[in-house]
């Protein structure tokens, strides 16, 4: 199976080329190349163990890789440097929720605003105008993001006490607080019911902007079809198909990969 090389053009925000990641003798990613254009929402699908999570972990620089490059806006991303990746505009959510449960919803969102204008400790201790202005602005922006995702009424609650579906939405609000140029959504519909999934799809379409690339890893094909214009299919660490949701659904390799695996039924 030959790789489907991503078309590298200037409007590609994220370019992954020849990405290989091995864990001992297992090759989790085998020379994967893929691009996400600015303004594009691309889905990454594939059976369990196909390498989707490894790919997300590489792009968000949680993990490192053995070969290949990841670039954002033309500049390379370094492996095992999540702080650097976040500060370059790569933001992600997690398959298993990872909110700061002990903090309020509002604080969860505010904590991700690393780009916000700071203030000195002196200004904070003396409650100076810079401190108040910066804090008020962050608070205001955080509330706007919570309103966008529809959980503004939970703002003052402890994140850990929220119902599951709400926590998913808070995580999306928090990931947007980074002002990302690339948003990685790791199985955002996992654990949601049909109504919640439909609402989430609507939200993902709403947050799409011309200056934001979204890469969404998801099992739910209905969800994928409703949010993504392009789909990349991974199987055993290789890209086996790429195209529109409709094209990918009919692709023989994809059918084989999915029917051949007993794990995935969605």
């Amino acid at each position: 199976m030959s790789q489907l090389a991503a078309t590298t053009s200037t409007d590609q925000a994220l370019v992954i080329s020849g990405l290989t990641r091995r864990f001992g003798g297992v090759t989790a990613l085998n020379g994967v190349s893929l691009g996400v254009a600015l303004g594009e929402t691309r889905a990454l699908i594939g059976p369990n163990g196909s390498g989707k999570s490894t790919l997300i972990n590489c792009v968000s620089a949680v993990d490192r890789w053995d070969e290949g490059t990841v670039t954002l806006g033309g500049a390379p991303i370094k492996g095992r440097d999540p702080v650097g990746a976040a500060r370059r505009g790569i933001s992600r959510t997690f398959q298993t929720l990872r909110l700061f449960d002990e903090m309020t919803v509002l604080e969860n969102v505010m904590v991700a605003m690393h780009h916000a204008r700071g203030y000195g400790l002196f200004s904070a201790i003396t409650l100076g105008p810079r401190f108040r202005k910066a804090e008020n602005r962050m608070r205001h922006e955080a509330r706007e993001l919570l309103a966008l995702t529809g959980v503004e009424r939970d703002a003052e609650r402890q994140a850990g006490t929220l119902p599951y579906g709400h926590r998913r939405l808070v995580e999306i609000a928090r990931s947007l607080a980074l002002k990302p140029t690339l948003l990685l959504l790791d199985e955002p519909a996992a654990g949601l019911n049909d109504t919640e999934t439909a609402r989430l799809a609507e939200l993902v379409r709403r947050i799409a902007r011309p200056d934001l690339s979204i890469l969404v890893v998801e099992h739910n094909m209905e969800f994928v079809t409703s949010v993504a214009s392009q789909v990349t299919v991974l199987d055993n660490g290789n890209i086996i198909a790429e195209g529109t949701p409709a094209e990918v659904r009919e692709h023989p390799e994809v059918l084989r990969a999915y029917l051949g695996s007993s794990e995935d039924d969605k």
Partner: protein
Amino acid sequence: MIIQPLVSGLAIGGIYALLAVSFLLTYRVSGVLNFAQGEFVMVGAFVASTVAGIAGIPLIAAALLGVGAAAFAGVAMERVTYRPLRNKPHASMIISTVAVGIVLTQAAQLIWGPNPRTLPSLVPNVSIDFLGSRISTVSLFLIVISAVLIVALHLVLTKTRLGRQLEATSVDSDTAQLMGIRTGRLVIIAFAISTGLAGVAGILVAPMFSVTVGLGVLIALKAFAACVIGGFGNLPGAAIAAVGLGVVENLAGTFIGTDSKDLIAFGLMIAFLIVRPQGIFGAKVGEKL
């Protein structure tokens, strides 16, 4: 009759509280109980007393240098022992803090020798009449400074960006990094503030005793007891417990006898560990140990 021991109790309780919050600050961010915390009390006092002995240097400058030295020593400790060991088993890290304490004690012994030194108080020691009792200005000064510092620290931790970032780092450091938070830098800041506060405690408490290598040992143990009693997850709770402990042991010292002080403090700690390990206000000891 009761006013005087009460005020002294509040003063020493304030010192315990300063050290208790300094304990918790690094404990929460790094997950490590720093058993060398008491030695930073001694470092601050020794450096201040040495600098104060040089002619022409004002006492306040000596005090600030002492605090700076304690903070600097804390950062050095973070660099040399905490950072290389942070992914190792927790036991290694805890043992390393004990070792750092011993190293600091021995180093101080070598530098400053066995003879106790003195450090004058930043305020003149005057007895003033208060509701018929004589209370000392030094005690009042201790109460005011520790209260101001603890309230300021609490506000920084709960109301500012630095506080949110420290909290996020203590809850989940990996996720905090993905939010663009430079967690390594925050751990350094936490160590600097924490050991700096221990240095402040040293400068405040030194005029009441004399400056020896063991100056901070008992204070740190009492602060630790206060954390157990107040609850490790709760900074204001530990501070309140520390003040309470200072008052209770001082009243006991006055009305029962000096020997009862430590007995009561550590008896309470043992009782809490057995009966209410989460402390009065919350989280259990050992969850992050």
